[in-house]
C-alpha cells in the first residue's frame, strides 16, 4: 500500500549542467562501480520489489479468504472501473493534491519572504515553523481533529472571544471539509517549502538586486520580475513534491475525518486501506496500482512544465 513513493523532483539545473559538462569531457573514474551495491540493494528490496509485487498481485485473486493465489487477468480492473467508487475517490485525491500544492507553496513562499533576513528572531521562527514537518502526521491529524470538533478548542476560543456559544462543526461540511484537511496538510508541510524557498532566495545574486534597486524598482516589481522567476528551481521542487506527495496522502485525513463526512474526503489511499481491511488484498493492490499510474502520468507533464520555467536561468 505504501510501496509507491512520489517521484523525486529533478536535481536543480545548475547540477544538471555540470553533469552534462562532465558527460562531454568523459566520466571521472573516482570510484569503483560496486560502491553502488549497498544502495542498490536497499533500492531493489524496498522499492523495486514492492513495486513489481504491486503489478503482479493486481492480476490475482489474493485475499484473506483462501491460501492459494490464482491469476485472474483483468478481472479486478474491470470490476473496479465498473463501480463508481474508484473514479470518485481518484477525483477527490486529485482535488486534495491540487489544494495542498497551492496552500503549501503559498504559505511556504510567504514565510520565506517574511523570515528572509538572518536575524535572531527569524532564525527562531524558522525552526518553529519547521517543527510540524518533523512531527508525526497522525499526531498532527488527531490534534486538529480535537481542535476542530464541535466542542473542541477552536470553538471554545471563538466562544470566549465572541461571548456566544459557538458550535461550528469544522469537519462537518460535505463541501468544505476537503479544504480544511488540505489546509492542515499544508500547515504540516509548509516549513519544508519555506526552507527550500529560503535556500532559493539566498542563491539570487546580490548584484542583480542592487542593480534593480538603483533602477528604482519597488519591492513588488523586484519580486515579480526578478526574484520569483529566479526562484524557479525551488518552486519546481516544492510544487512537484507537494502535488505528487499529497496524492499519496493518508495519515492526516484518516486521523481527522477518516474519509467523512459522507465520503467527501475519502482519498484513494483511505479506500485502499478499507478494501485491504475487508480482506480483499488483490483489489486493494489494483487500486494502489492505479494510483501509482495516475501519479506517474501526472508527474511527467507537471515536471516538464515546471522545468520549462527554469529556462530563464
Amino acid at each position, binding site marked *: 500500500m505504501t510501496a509507491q513513493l512520489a517521484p523525486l523532483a529533478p536535481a536543480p539545473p545548475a547540477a544538471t549542467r555540470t553533469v552534462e559538462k562532465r558527460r562531454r569531457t568523459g*566520466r571521472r573514474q573516482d570510484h569503483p*562501480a560496486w560502491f*553502488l551495491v549497498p544502495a*542498490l540493494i536497499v533500492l*531493489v528490496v524496498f522499492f*523495486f*520489489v514492492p513495486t*513489481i*509485487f504491486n503489478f*503482479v498481485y493486481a492480476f*490475482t*485473486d*489474493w*485475499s*484473506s*479468504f*483462501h*491460501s*492459494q*493465489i490464482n491469476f485472474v487477468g483483468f478481472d479486478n480492473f474491470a*470490476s473496479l472501473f465498473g*463501480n463508481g*467508487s474508484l473514479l470518485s475517490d481518484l477525483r477527490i485525491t486529485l482535488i486534495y493534491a491540487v489544494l495542498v500544492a497551492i496552500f503549501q507553496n503559498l504559505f511556504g513562499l510567504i514565510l520565506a519572504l517574511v523570515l528572509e533576513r538572518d536575524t535572531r528572531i527569524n532564525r527562531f521562527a524558522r525552526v518553529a515553523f519547521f517543527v510540524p514537518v518533523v512531527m508525526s502526521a497522525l499526531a498532527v491529524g488527531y490534534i486538529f481533529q480535537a481542535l476542530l470538533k*464541535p466542542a473542541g478548542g477552536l470553538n471554545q476560543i471563538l466562544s470566549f472571544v465572541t461571548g456566544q456559544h459557538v458550535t461550528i*462543526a469544522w469537519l*462537518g461540511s*460535505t463541501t468544505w471539509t476537503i479544504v480544511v484537511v488540505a489546509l492542515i496538510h499544508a500547515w504540516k508541510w509548509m516549513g519544508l517549502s519555506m526552507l527550500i524557498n529560503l535556500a532559493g532566495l539566498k542563491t539570487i545574486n546580490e548584484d542583480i538586486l542592487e542593480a534593480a534597486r538603483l533602477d528604482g524598482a519597488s519591492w513588488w516589481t523586484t519580486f515579480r520580475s526578478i526574484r520569483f522567476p529566479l526562484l524557479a528551481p525551488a518552486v519546481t521542487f516544492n510544487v512537484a513534491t507537494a502535488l505528487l506527495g499529497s496524492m499519496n496522502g493518508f495519515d492526516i485525513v484518516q486521523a481527522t475525518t477518516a474519509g*467523512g*463526512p*459522507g*465520503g*467527501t474526503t475519502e482519498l484513494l489511499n483511505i479506500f485502499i*486501506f*478499507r478494501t*485491504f*481491511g*475487508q*480482506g*480483499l*488484498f*488483490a*483489489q486493494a493492490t489494483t487500486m494502489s496500482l492505479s494510483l501509482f499510474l495516475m501519479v506517474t502520468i501526472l508527474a511527467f507533464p507537471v515536471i516538464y512544465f515546471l522545468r520549462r520555467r527554469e529556462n530563464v536561468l
Partner: protein
Amino acid sequence: MKIAWKGAATVAAIAAAAALALSGCSDPGSGGSGSGATTWPAQDTKLDGVNLTIWAAQNSNKTADSVISGFEKLTGAKVKVVTIPDPYEQGIQTKVATGDKPDLAFWQPTASELTALNATQNLQSLQGAPWVKNYTGNLGDMTGILNGTRYAALVTTPAVIGVYYNKDVLAANGITSTPKNWDEFIADAQALKAKGVDPFYEMGGDKWATQWWVQAQLADAAKAGLWDKVNSNTEKFTDPTIQGAIDNYQKLIQQGLFNSDIKTATFVDQGKALLDGKAAMVMQVNSFFGELQATANTADLNKKIGFFPISPKGNVGTFIPDQSNALVAFKTGDSKREAAARQFLSYWLGDGYNDFVKAQSTVSLIKGVDTPSDVPTALQDVAKSLDTSVGSMQALAVANPDLYLNLADMIQGTKTPVQVAQTTQDQFAQLAKAQGVKGF
C-alpha cells in the same frame, strides 16, 4: 567495462526481483500444523515454561485479567495480552495475512468474520470442547461455528440490537408500557415528538451505529431466511426487503424523529443525551451500555435506563456477537502451545468462569454459574432476549459489507437510499466472489 557492468547489474536486479515476485506468489499467511483429532487437556495440567499470547482490542484488553491470573497460578504458564490498536479486525487480518499469529485472540465469532480470518487454515478446531454442553439456552448453537466446525469460544453473551430508553422520559410523557411492534414503536415516537422531546438519537458523526436501524427492521425477515437468500444471490440489498428498510430509515430521519445534530453527533454524545433525558430512545448494542456505565453507577442505571428488543411484527431482537464476546485459538505450529491455548479456554469456561463473571460483573452463560447481582437490569434483559432473537447481517451473511458507512453517507446527504443499497450490494458481491461463494 562500465557499460557491461551496468547491463549485467540491471539484468541481475530484474532477475532477482522477478524471482522474488514469483516465489512470493504464495500466501505468506498460509501454513500451520496439520489437523488431527482435537484433544482437551485437563484444566490443571502443569504448563511450566509455556508462554501464551492473547491479542485483544482496546476495549477487551482487560477482559481476561482474572482468568489469566487464575490460570497462571494453577498451571505455571505465562499469559501475555497484546493490545492491537483499532480498527482491530483490519489490524489482525493484516498481521495474519503476513504470517504473524498469536496463540489466542478476541474475535467476532460470526461466520463472516471467521471466514475473513480463513478459519479452516489459520484457526484450531474447537470441536468437542468440554464446555459446550454447559452453555445456557441455545448459545452453543448460536454462533462460533463455520461450515459445521466450531472455531470460536463464546465467553460473554452476544450483543443484541435493540432499544435503550430513558424510563423517566417515557413515563413523564404518558408512555407506560414498551411497544409491542414497530407500529406502536413509531406511534410512541410521534407522541414524544408532539410533546417536544427528541424521540430517537443517532450518532451520524461516528457512523457505526447507523446500521442497527436497518437491521432491526429486518429481524422478522431474517427469521424467515433472508440472509440465506442473500448468501445465494437470490435476494439482493437492492430488492424491496432491505431497500425498504433503508428507505424507511431515511423517512424517519426526514420526519424529524431524530436529534437535529444527527450528522455530527458522536457515540459519547448519544450516551449523554439518553442519560440526561435529552432524547427518549436509542437503537444500540451492548457496548452502548458500557458507555453509560462509564458515567453512571448501576443503581442510577437500573432506575433510569431500560431495554426492549423491537422488530416489525413484534419484539424479536437481533443478536450481533462482537469481538469482545469470544476468542479463537490459532494454529501456530507448536503443538504444546496449541494444547495450552485449548486448556486456557477450558479453564476460562470451566473452573475460572465464576471468578470471571464476578470480576467483569457480566451475565453468565454457563449453567451452574450464577449471574452476579450487580449486573444492571438492562443487561439482564438483553441476555433474556437472546433466546428469541435472530442473527444479524454480521452473524448470518457470508460477508460483512460497509453498510454502516453507506448509511452514514446517506445521513450526510451524499448518497441516496438507492445508492446505499447498490454500493452495499456491489461490495457484498465482491466479497462473496473473493470467498468463492456459489452464485457470485
